């Protein structure tokens, strides 16, 4: 059987031709885009399995942060996996005081970021879905003539990848990409959800200053976002500026009266300064409480109830 196969090796080129002919029409972008290349973005060639540190060093260096792949490796390289996890790329970006903003999963979003001067760090799968070969690269440019992307990738300083291959390898990695920006500079194409999702981890990690800069920037851009006001309230509260926290929460409740978190937090702040009736009014106004918040809200309710009923001192908001 094997010999017959070998004997028919004249057929093999035909088979290869068939395989490559199955690709279909080339993909196209919806509208033409202008060419852009951030040619000053530095390049760090990767060593084996270390594309994560190399790509992140490239991204941070473009932000004026002097850091080498060797310095990043102990922070993000996982020896047992011979690679770097996405969450640690994001976490390390925060550690260097930049906000890691996830991009919308479209080539247009990548081109828009490049147009705004931000290189884009992306995950590619150079293998197959079932047999993946994960790779981080940094997009630094786009050529409009042949719709190809220019990447800092692996050991190649200027790799041009056609749109079809770019989308194939990016699709297989679920189109994961992010940019690193200053926490008070909201890119023009950023969405509120992505910005807040990138900002909130600073707060959870106790980096209140960074979180607050990001929330304030969010409010400049989206002044009617209840969540952004809640974020600002949380950072003000953490800084022990409770009047400012209360004011921000009042605004958050006004903008989204159905927000369980805004009302719970407002009740909590009100209770702390003895406004029991006003706090209870906030809890009474709650609709259905999601299971994930049931414990926190239940605790606030018990705290309020333990104070009994009494008249609020002057200065409390009237319920």
């Amino acid at each position, binding site marked *: 059987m094997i010999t017959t196969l070998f004997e028919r090796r004249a057929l093999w080129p035909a088979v290869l031709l068939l395989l490559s002919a199955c690709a279909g029409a080339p993909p196209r972008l919806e509208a033409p885009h202008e060419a852009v290349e951030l040619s000053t973005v530095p390049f760090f060639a*990767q060593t084996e399995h270390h594309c994560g540190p*190399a790509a992140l060093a490239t991204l941070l260096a473009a932000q004026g942060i002097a850091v080498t792949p060797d310095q990043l490796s102990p922070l993000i390289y996982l020896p047992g996996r011979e690679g770097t996890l996405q969450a640690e790329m994001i*976490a390390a970006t925060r550690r260097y005081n930049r906000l890691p903003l996830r991009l919308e999963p479209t080539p247009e979003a990548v081109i828009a970021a490049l147009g705004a001067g931000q290189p884009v760090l992306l995950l590619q799968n150079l293998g197959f879905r079932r047999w993946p*070969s994960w790779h981080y690269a940094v997009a630094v440019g786009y050529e409009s003539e042949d719709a190809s992307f220019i990447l800092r990738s692996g050991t190649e300083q200027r790799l041009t990848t056609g749109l079809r291959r770019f989308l194939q390898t990016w699709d297989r990695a679920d189109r994961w990409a992010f940019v690193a920006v200053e926490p008070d500079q909201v890119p023009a194409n950023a969405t509120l959800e992505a910005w807040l999702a990138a900002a909130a981890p600073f707060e*959870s990690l106790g980096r209140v200053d960074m979180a607050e800069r990001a929330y304030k920037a969010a409010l400049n851009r989206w002044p009617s976002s209840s969540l952004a006001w809640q974020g600002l309230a949380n950072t003000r509260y953490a800084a022990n500026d409770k009047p400012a926290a209360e004011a921000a929460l009042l605004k958050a409740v006004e903008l989204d009266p159905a927000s369980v978190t805004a009302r719970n937090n407002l009740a*909590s702040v009100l209770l702390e300064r003895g406004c029991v009736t006003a706090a209870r009014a906030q809890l009474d106004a709650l609709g259905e409480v999601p299971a*994930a918040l049931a414990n926190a809200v239940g605790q606030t309710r018990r705290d309020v109830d333990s104070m009994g009923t009494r008249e609020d001192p002057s200065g409390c908001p009237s319920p």
Partner: protein
Amino acid sequence: MHATLRTLFVGWLSAALILIGFPAHAGMIGTESAISVDARASHLATVEQFMARDEVRAQFEGFGVEPAMAAERVANLSDAELQQMAFNIESQPAGAGALAVVGIVFIVLLILELVGVINVFQSF
């Protein structure tokens, strides 16, 4: 080995949660929780934060990170990231690089060469 440990841990955790329930937190709800409640189905059970932290740290050490560094790396991860990672570091993409692919291409070329489809290596 890891899988077994994790199965045991998950079992123990489920039992513990059923028996004692989640400990309650008083006061303010952080923005990260507010966002995650906004964004996804809230019936999803979540692992208590300190348990997720311990689990991920143990896994980092299992994957060859120095204990002190593992603790520091875990400290850099947000609540949501820890939740995501607590039980599936093994199955998450770990970007490694383009170099391995060169190896695959080499093997394919070598096979094609050996069966006589191509002759690239004879030209060297």
